[in-house]
């Protein structure tokens, strides 16, 4: 009854290809933006920033990246952790080698470097598909982490083998280092997440995005239509890695402040991001956010309820978390590959007709 396109007529093609087809969607979107930019920064405290919002935004950026590659272009990757490491270590090297370079640029250039590495490791995708490609990207995951542990130049010969971020500020506001304010951490991640989501939306509704989806759905037909598969796959690897590299740079410099490659960028992270896009929705921008929110919030929630309220053993709570995530993955893969985002869409479809079923 309330969620309707009644009285809304599209009078031009540009209008018709707008991101939000129904007015209410658009208002919902503005509403969220107002809360995200105008309200949360004033309320956020250290706990909420570090346990919820900042990791959510960083993982959302990583999910956007992997979703472009896997969800849109159909190329499976288990190298996300490794690519995040490339972003993080690039950022560290840039920050320490060029102390005067603005941190924003450091992060963006880290993305560009990761994109180049992504292209390199994407080359096997021209020959192999599916399971074999997954194994090849897994190899890149292990190789990259090994490299950052093994070559002291990457961590500036520090005794611990860790990298830790110097203090950097944007417009006089500290955004990295131990003394950073939670709202500043939150805002800089939000800016990146917002800008990158907007870019991903644009890319995936244009011709490059269509060439990715065509490659995913039917590569033979894509080719005879004029899609250069080499270009489509490598550009997907490049742009996906750009996003993941930025996520890695934010993860290291803004969120954690100090990391060690094996721990921060291990294979677990690759799976985590993969789970996010499966649960959130393959090939959906909204799904990347929902998936990241779910995977970040779910453990926090579970821990608060089981351990905090019911006094369960923390170890059991963790096991339960693994089990439920595992079950969810299976359920989504079998019943709803388009994830929570699709469930949300179906719900809206129902609402549109409600209360008349036809």
């Amino acid at each position, binding site marked *: 009854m309330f969620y309707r396109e009644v009285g809304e007529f599209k009078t*031009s*093609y*540009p209008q*018709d*290809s707008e991101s939000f087809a129904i007015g209410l969607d658009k208002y919902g979107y503005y509403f969220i933006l107002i809360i995200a930019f105008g309200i949360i920064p004033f309320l956020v405290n250290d706990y909420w920033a570090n346990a919820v919002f900042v990791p959510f935004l960083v993982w959302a950026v990583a999910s956007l990246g992997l979703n472009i590659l896997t969800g849109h272009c159909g190329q499976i990757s288990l190298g996300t952790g490794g690519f995040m490491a490339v972003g993080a270590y690039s950022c560290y090297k840039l920050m320490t080698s060029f102390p005067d370079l603005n941190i924003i640029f450091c992060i963006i250039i880290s993305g560009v470097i990761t994109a180049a590495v992504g292209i390199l490791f994407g080359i096997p995708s021209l020959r192999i598909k599916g399971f074999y490609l997954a194994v090849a990207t897994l190899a890149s995951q292990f190789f990259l982490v090994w490299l950052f542990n093994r070559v002291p130049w990457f961590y500036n010969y520090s005794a611990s083998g860790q990298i830790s971020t110097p203090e950097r500020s944007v417009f006089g506001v500290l955004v990295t280092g131990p003394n950073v304010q939670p709202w500043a951490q939150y805002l800089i991640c939000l800016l990146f997440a917002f800008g990158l989501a907007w*870019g991903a939306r*644009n*890319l995936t*509704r*244009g*011709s*490059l995005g*269509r*060439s990715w*989806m*065509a490659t*995913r*759905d*039917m590569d*033979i*037909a*894509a*080719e*005879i*239509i*004029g*899609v*250069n*598969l080499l270009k489509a796959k490598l*550009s997907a690897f490049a742009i996906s890695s750009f996003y993941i590299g930025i996520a890695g740079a934010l993860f290291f410099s803004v969120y954690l402040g100090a990391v060690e490659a094996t721990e921060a960028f291990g294979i677990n992270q690759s799976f985590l991001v993969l789970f996010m896009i499966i649960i959130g929705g393959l*090939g959906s921008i909204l799904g990347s956010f929902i998936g990241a929110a779910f995977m970040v919030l779910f453990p926090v929630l579970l821990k608060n309820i089981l351990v905090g309220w019911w006094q369960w053993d923390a170890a059991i709570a963790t096991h339960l978390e693994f089990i439920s995530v595992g079950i969810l993955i299976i359920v989504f893969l079998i019943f709803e590959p388009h994830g929570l985002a699709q469930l949300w869409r179906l719900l809206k479809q129902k609402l549109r007709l409600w209360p008349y079923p036809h």
Partner: protein
Amino acid sequence: MNETEVTDKVDTLMDIKKVTLRFGGVKALSDVSFNIKESEIRAIIGPNGAGKSSMLNVINGFYTPQEGEIWFQGKRRPKLKPHQIAYQRIARTFQNIALFEGMTVLDNMMTGRMIYMKSGLLPQLLWWGKAEREETENRMIVERIIDFLEIQHIRKTPVGMLPYGLQKRVELGRALAAEPKLLLLDEPMAGMNNEEKEDMCRFILDVNEELGTSIALIEHDMGVVMDLADRVVVIDHGEKIADGLPDQVRNDQNVIDAYLGVAH
């Protein structure tokens, strides 16, 4: 072979010369020659496994023949990749539907216009300037094809959800979106009911008459072939056994034998 048909260079769009295609020991095509003229409907017929689909795959670069040449618009075509051949405006449909299942009808057809999409990464990322303009311009052309094929009501439907007959029609639409000079149709009416077949025939004739598009049509239904085709080439066991006007071909003894399964 019938050499009298060949050729007035001006109005020959494609000339296939002595093409031989082998898969290991199997000869899918041996020494096949025929041509396709501007604005004609050229039927390719023959029993199952004769090599008809393989011929289309050679034409759009999917298979590379071991011997033979392909001449297009008066020039010998070098070895090109399928996506390069698309830029010569050769489009096709497949025997087994090959749509992009996860995409809507509209997106499938917009993808069909890939060769006209020129805007760079940055404008696309920002949805700005050329990227947006290009999208609108191409959308208008796609909308005309949607109107022509009478599929307005399913524009935004994911193609995977459509019934078979409509999928075939959308696939034709995707090929038409490329505004092809040469359109290759691999059994576009297979598995359709009579009404759907009639619609499809009408679309094919209209495209040919109104746009002057040359069409190579693989089809089993002889009635359809007789109605639509200007000329017919018959392939059996990878060899051309007849080539000519529909009536000539129908009464050709070799063709009758091939279809009745007489050994030769």
